[in-house]
């Protein structure tokens, strides 16, 4: 139970002949950003080549977020902003068999290439300040990938912070067999041009020897960026990459006939997207995924 054993099993499942029919889910992520009181959206902030963009605050179909995360929480598949699906039952598991996506742009009428990254958003908090110099509490507890293996710390800007670049460090618990708390991450730049704008995301590199994070105690800037803004810390587990190789071309991630192979979608996963662009037009995404339950 809980595996796609061979192509015979896959073929049977995909045509609906297995215990549970596959889920074929769709999502449209517009390039407009949810801001203020519903139904207000704002034009997207231009992305930057080589800089991660979080699509968490984008207006979507099915419906997405209506506000920033606020107090620390462990989002699930029921959290507004998550790409919804039906959890597996009967002791079975859910597997991502294929993913197809397009990226366009409705604000500048332009195409762009880049990389889409599907991840499971395990924990998030917003309301951190770009001017606070003390350790800002993150806290919370993971409900998936609780051993921390393969989890990343990701910073995310919701309202632009200051123009002065500073060094961010996080205090965290790693993913060792006997997890060590009080670990300190490598310094990551926050604030300043390219690292302060809304929807920017950045990965906080872990301390030497660490390969995952099971908890984040706090985040410290140390010196003010100049503007409080609003930013936060997430713990994420990356799941799948979808390359958009040329502007306007469909990106296909076939998890069956290519490597890496099928990916498990955990029960309650909060599926969300990052975009790593090669140019500035903000992404307007259309995507579909096939989830196999075995």
């Amino acid at each position, binding site marked *: 139970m809980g595996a796609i054993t061979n192509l015979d099993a896959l073929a049977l499942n995909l045509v609906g002949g297995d215990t549970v029919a596959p889920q074929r889910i769709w999502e449209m992520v517009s390039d407009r950003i949810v801001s203020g009181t519903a139904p207000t959206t704002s034009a997207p902030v231009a992305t930057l080549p080589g800089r991660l963009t979080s699509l968490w605050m984008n207006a979507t179909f099915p419906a997405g977020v209506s506000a920033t995360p606020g107090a620390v929480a462990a989002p699930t598949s029921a959290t507004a902003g998550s790409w919804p699906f039906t959890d597996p039952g009967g002791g079975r598991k859910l597997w991502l068999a294929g993913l197809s996506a397009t990226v366009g742009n409705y604000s500048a009428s332009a*195409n762009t290439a880049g990389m889409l990254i599907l991840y499971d958003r395990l924990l998030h908090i917003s309301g951190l300040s770009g001017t606070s110099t003390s350790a800002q509490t993150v806290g919370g507890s993971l409900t998936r990938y609780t051993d921390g293996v393969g989890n990343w710390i990701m910073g995310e800007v919701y309202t632009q912070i200051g123009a002065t670049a500073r060094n961010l460090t996080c205090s965290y618990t790693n993913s060792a067999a006997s997890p060590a708390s009080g670990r300190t991450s490598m310094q990551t730049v926050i604030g300043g041009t390219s690292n302060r704008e809304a929807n920017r995301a950045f990965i906080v590199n872990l301390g030497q020897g660490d390969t995952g994070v099971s908890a984040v105690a706090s985040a410290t800037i140390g010196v003010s960026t100049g503007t409080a803004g609003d930013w936060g810390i997430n713990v994420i587990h990356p799941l799948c990459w979808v390359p958009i190789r040329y502007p306007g*071309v469909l990106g296909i991630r076939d998890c069956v006939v290519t490597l890496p192979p099928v990916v498990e979608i955990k029960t309650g996963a909060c599926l969300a997207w990052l975009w790593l662009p090669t140019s500035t037009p903000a992404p307007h995404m259309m995507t579909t995924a096939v989830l196999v339950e075995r």
Partner: protein
Amino acid sequence: MAITNLADYKSAVATPHQGVAFSKGTSTARAGIWSSLFTVAFATGAAPGANAQCSYSTAGAINGYIDAATLNILGVESSGGFLSTTQTGGAFMLVDRLTHCSGLNATLNTEQAIGSVSLPRYTSGVGVMAAIEVYTLIGGSTTTGTLKYNNAAGTPVANLVSYQFGIGGNSGQQAQSIIPIGLASGDNGVTKAQSVTLTATTGTAGDFGVTLFKPLLLLNAAPFTDTKTVDMIVGMACQCAAVQTSACLTWLSLGYTTTAPSITGVLKLVEF
């Protein structure tokens, strides 16, 4: 034909129950924006006017197949030019067009009502997307708008308001532009479109409307000189779209540049 293993599947792809040829000629394209090929030759549809249900018989639908039981698209095959474009790259989306209307004015900032029409298929509304569709050029001034709709709850809730979408100018001005709409928090589909309200004028009245559709397939385009055959397991990332009885199948294309794409090929349909 029962498909129980890989061999059965390969056999079904090689000899499907039906092959449906389709061909769409040139259209108006804008880079980065989806275009509806509904009003594009061949099998040319028209601006619908009053809100109406769409079906297999609607002018503009791909309907060269026997509309019997639910069919499944196992593959798309080249026949001398599959999904041809005149430039490298591009993407297409096959949708089941459910309801549509036109006649809305892109200079008005008052609520414009849409006649009440129920979904003919996917009647729960789950997974049904709403989009603005432009039939005649609207203005170059970009503004925003909202859609008032009934959602896909067990008992649909009326008078819900979508998140603002952009319209006009770079956000969709040309005829055939189609602008998908983000729904209000908690909603996963639309059962009825009620009205559209623009924030400001786009500058030109033009003609636009609201289309409700169920997305079925995302496919890549091949250069005109290339041929391509894809199936559910190889090349379609496990997509296998079910085509309901009386479906109004139409294509959307994602503009690569302003060069108009063309598209020809065969859908391989199998009953199981």
